[in-house]
């Protein structure tokens, strides 16, 4: 009877990989590919409908490979399914405009948000889903495994070992998923070296590498020039430090990348120090090496920082502070987005960041009409980790507040949204309905692109005061707590004044004066650095800011 069974092959993927490699032979010498042969190699190797991860990170971009892919003939290479965290380059969009790619699963599209929305409206693209980073990385191993990945590294040696440099970001997780599922790994490098400073990706996982004509593009996304921090942001930072960091004893945390949180970083050595908080708060961080963190590091507030990526200009500073950061034996930073996101989700007690819109349930979104931005790191880090099982003082206190003062079975993450009530005249941050809902309808999405869900948010800080949503006992209280800090936005002016005063009496809403903060103290003189040059000085000359941030 077994003779009648058809014979099933169990190595179909390996055979397919072998065929791809054989088709590529004319265009490579061993693993090395000349830059001019890259388009031909891709055309030979790719098959229509392939799932391709084109490494696009927050900062580091496989730009040469992206341009090479965009230069392929759509007759030969078409209908690709791109699975990548960030859509940052014009070439990424061109792939869809030319029909080389058709489907996209991604996380973030900041710089290309507008063009992406137009592609959706013209039906030139199918979007699978907009993911959080960890979610997308998870799917790389389940149902979105790349058949080919195009990655960026700092250097290769002759064998094809790779050194990733300080900006690791997504590379390890992409390569792991591709290389161990019979996929093809192609790397662009800035240089070929006889001997690498360290091996981050072993040659046996790498199929091809190419020395790109120009070094890969890196954007200094995490540099916030202190001169743009407003006194309103200083005021809100004072409230966050005194009303949240100090009260809960927050030692482990992650910050967003806006000026609001940069203000907090720069207030730690001045205002935080004056409150006697050194050694008590903000000791352990999941954070890229923000230049605005330098004064707090130098002042002894910060004890450890693990990073998703690096930041342009921070290389020498990071190398000179090995106790704080995670350098390799060679001295340069080792970062890793997947691990740092995990740390932010499970090992931090607080996330604080800003947003563009908050609704009456506390849902927040950075999506606005006509733009599909997706999410950065906020959704993973700005959510309560239901799988967490270790306790900390801050986590327990927040859990207790949420549980009506009773000792709970689990704690609660502090998720703080800090936002000025009006971003500018005509643009209130507090709204009855998020633009995300309209966007869902216009773009035919399954879900509205909500960055942080209201039920994860513990506090909202505005210039008017702070709302502690953990203490609210009904949806009505929650709504009034949000209206009660929404200032002179239409949402704020529609508050029930009596109920808001009641919430204030119960400490659910606290004004600056209720926290012992005098608004007159909220000046830029309180910042530990008011300019990029102050940051350079604070670093002892180790921080080397990119030229667009210098005035010397």
């Amino acid at each position: 009877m077994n003779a009648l069974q058809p014979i099933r092959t169990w190595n179909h993927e390996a055979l397919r990989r072998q065929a791809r490699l054989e088709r590529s032979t004319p265009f490579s010498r061993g693993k090395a590919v000349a830059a001019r042969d890259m388009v031909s190699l891709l055309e030979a190797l790719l098959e229509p409908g392939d799932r391709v991860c084109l490494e696009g990170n927050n900062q580091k971009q496989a730009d040469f490979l992206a341009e090479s892919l965009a230069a392929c003939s759509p007759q030969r290479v078409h209908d690709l399914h791109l699975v990548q965290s960030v859509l940052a380059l014009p070439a990424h969009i061109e792939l869809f405009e030319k029909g080389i790619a058709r489907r996209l699963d991604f996380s973030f599209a900041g710089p290309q948000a507008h063009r992406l929305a137009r592609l959706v409206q013209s039906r030139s693209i199918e979007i699978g889903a907009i993911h959080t980073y960890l979610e997308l990385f998870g799917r790389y191993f389940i149902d979105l495994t790349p058949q080919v990945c195009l990655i960026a590294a700092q250097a290769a040696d002759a064998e094809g070992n790779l050194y990733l440099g300080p900006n690791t970001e997504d590379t390890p997780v992409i390569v792991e998923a591709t290389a161990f599922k019979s996929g093809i790994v192609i790397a662009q490098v800035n240089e070929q070296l006889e001997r690498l400073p360290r091996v981050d990706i072993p040659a046996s996982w790498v199929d091809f590498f190419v020395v790109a004509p120009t070094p890969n593009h890196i954007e200094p996304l995490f540099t916030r020039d202190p001169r743009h921090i407003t006194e309103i942001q200083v005021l809100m930072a004072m409230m966050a430090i005194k009303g949240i960091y100090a009260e809960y004893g927050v030692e482990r945390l992650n910050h967003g990348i806006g000026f609001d949180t940069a203000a907090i970083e720069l207030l730690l050595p001045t205002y935080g120090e004056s409150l006697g908080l050194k050694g008590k708060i903000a000791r352990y961080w999941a954070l890229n090496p923000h230049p605005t963190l330098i004064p707090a590091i130098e002042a002894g507030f910060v004890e450890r920082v693990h990073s998703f990526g690096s930041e342009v200009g921070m290389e020498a500073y990071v190398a000179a502070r090995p106790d704080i950061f995670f350098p390799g034996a060679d001295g340069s930073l080792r970062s890793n987005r997947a691990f740092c996101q995990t740390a932010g989700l499970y090992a931090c007690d607080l996330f604080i960041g800003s947003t563009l819109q908050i609704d009456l349930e506390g849902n927040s979104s950075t999506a606005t009409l006509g733009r599909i931005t997706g999410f950065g790191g906020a959704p993973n880090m700005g959510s309560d980790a239901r799988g967490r099982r270790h306790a900390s003082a801050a986590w327990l206190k927040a859990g207790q507040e949420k549980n009506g003062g009773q000792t709970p079975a689990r704690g609660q993450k502090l998720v703080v949204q800090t936002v000025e009530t009006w971003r500018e005249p005509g643009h209130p941050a507090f709204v009855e309905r998020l633009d995300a809902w309209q966007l869902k309808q216009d773009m035919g999405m399954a879900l509205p692109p909500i960055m942080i869900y209201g039920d994860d948010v513990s506090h909202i800080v505005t210039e008017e005061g702070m709302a502690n949503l953990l203490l609210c006992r009904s949806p009505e209280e929650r709504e009034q707590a949000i209206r009660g800090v929404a200032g002179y936005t239409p949402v704020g002016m529609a508050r029930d004044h009596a109920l808001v005063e009641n919430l204030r009496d119960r400490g659910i809403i606290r004004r600056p004066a209720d926290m012992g903060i005098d608004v007159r103290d909220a000046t830029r003189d309180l910042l530990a650095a008011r300019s990029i040059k102050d940051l350079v000085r604070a670093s002892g000359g180790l921080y080397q800011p990119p030229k667009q941030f210098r005035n010397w």
Partner: protein
Amino acid sequence: METLHLDLPAIQDASLNPRAALYGVVSSGNLEVLVERGHDATRCVFEVQTAAHGFVEVWKAVLTDFAARHPVGGLSFAIHDAGATPAVVSLRLDQAFQSLRGA
């Protein structure tokens, strides 16, 4: 430019002895406010010139709250606004008033 005149009831703090003084600056997203002695101890007068159109109701709410928050009877506030948010307006007015009290 849009102009707004508002005359509100207010309590006076007799210990204040205001000399005319100017706070802030007319630059984008900011405003200047000139504080002077008014004519009626039970009223507070506001004259606003603003570059942002369509925000009269917001201005009224911000100024009414300010006049209720502090004993500003007998004072007049003349404002040149270049698109400041309500947060900045409130902060600037509070700073101006606190400075009158004498640092």
